[in-house]
């Protein structure tokens, strides 16, 4: 049934005074159960103090699924590396998390190429183990209920990832590099300490389900409306602002910014050889003002504004806009600024259309 608590091995002891040696018992047990055809192996709950036996790949060469959940493992050991067909490894509720929890050379081993599903939930990882990043074929990764404080930008190396579960950690921010995972369809970040979502997350075109409940979000980036395939979105348990907010601290643009804006909006031609490299790079970072009447750009100097968008005609989500000047207005609502106003305007604006494309929102 569900992963049980680690318990004593069930094998009766012959000498009641001898200390049980779980690793020797496990080795003996597995050696006696060895099979050239067996595709699945599930270990019963126990309390191991060492790694899995080195003979594992010899005894079970055809293994496709291995479940070592609830066995007290503090390190997996190298015995797994030579399993060429293993696609699912479940190691929940163990004591993994220290250095050496995962075997060295994971990415290069046969296991590194075959593994598709890895569940390390309920362990003690304080950071995503770097050894994991070599798993180019990994489709599903769970590190739920660990002690993660962040997500490394290198997560983008898990190119095949479709399913990423990071709920129940201590994550405070999300790296924009997460958006570089081309196949990500299910992202769980609930029960963390996240204060903001990077707008780049809207580039996750395959995202079907996004779980953000029980975090520290006050607003969402406007770009979230671009996730047209999103079918599930959970936002409850966040201190989302309920009233219209206009950020009054507007830093006037620098001369560099004003020049940059002029070049972009007037389409002043320039070649890379015309400008120092740093300015060429600067010009490439221009962001478009979402105000449809403005058509301008901004670099560093912008006005932050929180506006509300109706989803499905019922729910009001606070979205953060960046506008190029206090005179610009957001495309989301040209209506009044009171919190009780309906944000349906007379003409369709791009935000309402995008909002209606979101089919289902699990809110509050």
């Amino acid at each position, binding site marked *: 049934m569900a992963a049980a608590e680690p318990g004593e091995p069930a094998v009766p002891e012959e000498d009641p005074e001898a200390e049980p040696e779980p690793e020797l018992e496990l080795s003996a047990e597995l050696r006696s159960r060895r099979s050239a055809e067996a595709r699945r192996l599930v270990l019963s709950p126990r309390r191991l103090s060492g790694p899995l036996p080195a003979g594992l790949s010899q005894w079970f060469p055809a293994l496709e699924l291995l479940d070592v959940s609830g066995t007290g493992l503090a390190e997996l050991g190298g015995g797994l590396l030579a399993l060429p067909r293993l696609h699912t490894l479940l190691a929940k509720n163990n004591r993994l998390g220290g250095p050496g929890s995962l075997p060295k050379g994971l990415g290069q081993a046969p296991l590194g190429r075959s593994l598709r*599903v890895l569940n390390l939930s309920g362990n003690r990882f304080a950071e995503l183990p770097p050894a994991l990043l070599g798993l180019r074929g990994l489709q599903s990764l769970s590190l739920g*209920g660990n002690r993660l404080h962040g997500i490394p930008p290198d997560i983008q190396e898990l190119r095949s990832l479709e399913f990423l579960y990071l*709920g129940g950690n201590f994550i405070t921010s999300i790296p924009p590099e997460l958006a570089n995972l081309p196949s990500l369809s*299910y992202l769980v970040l*609930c029960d963390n300490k996240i204060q903001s979502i990077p707008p780049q997350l809207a580039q996750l075109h395959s995202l079907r389900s996004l779980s953000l409940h029980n975090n520290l979000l006050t607003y969402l980036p406007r770009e979230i409306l671009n996730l047209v395939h999103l079918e599930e979105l*959970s936002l409850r348990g966040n201190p*989302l602002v309920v009233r219209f907010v206009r950020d009054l601290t507007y830093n006037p643009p620098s001369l560099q910014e004003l020049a940059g804006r002029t070049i972009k909006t007037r389409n002043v031609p320039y070649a890379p050889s015309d400008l120092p490299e740093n300015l060429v790079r600067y010009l490439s970072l221009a962001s478009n003002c979402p105000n449809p009447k403005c058509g301008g750009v901004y670099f560093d100097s912008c006005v932050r504004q929180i506006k509300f968008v109706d989803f499905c005609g019922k729910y009001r989500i606070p979205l953060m806009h960046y506008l190029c000047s206090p005179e610009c207005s957001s495309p989301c609502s040209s209506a009044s600024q009171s919190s009780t106003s309906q944000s349906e305007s007379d003409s369709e604006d791009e935000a309402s259309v995008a909002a209606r494309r979101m089919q289902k929102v699990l809110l509050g």
Partner: protein
Amino acid sequence: METEMWKARSLEELVRILHRLFAEDKVSVEEVQALMESYESNPEEWLQYAKFDQYRYTRNLVDNGNGKFNLMILCWGEGHGSSIHDHTDSHCFMKILQGNLKETLFEWPEKKGNGEMTKKSERVLRENQCAYINDSIGLHRVENISHTESAVSLHLYSPPFDSCNTFDQRTGHKHKVKMTFYSQFGERTLCVSRRWHAVLQPLTERCHMWGWG
């Protein structure tokens, strides 16, 4: 009149006794709740109905009670939860078959409510416990708060209903939704709007979690 306390020794027996109880004109809530609670969950008996979806919880019809009730199994992956919802004037029994579910009760929002909904109470239901709710008691949200274990629950609704209202916790606004079955009598029911179910390779992880065949 004495209320008999039934004991269901298998899922099949539970269904049989339920049919008998609901054939009568009057059904006692206490009797049904005690009966549901008396059944000791045996995964071998319900595994065929327990079809998980990686994105959200699923509703899997087990028996349609001759029109008097619907008996279904809900499968909750890690972190899966429902909206706050009502029960369309029906009785709702919820028994935990595996794992744990958190139930949060809410007061009905004020008519012209435009504020945060009031939480009444919350509890975590354990394996084999059976909870009961109806609209006069209030509204609830049910969620699997575990990040490591999935959960399975057995629900009885009488009379059957296929739509209800979901509520926005922040404003009390309600929204009518239609409910669908992920599977019926152990067979997956595909519907057009969720085409991608067939396209994505199913993750085999969850059915292997319990170590069964």
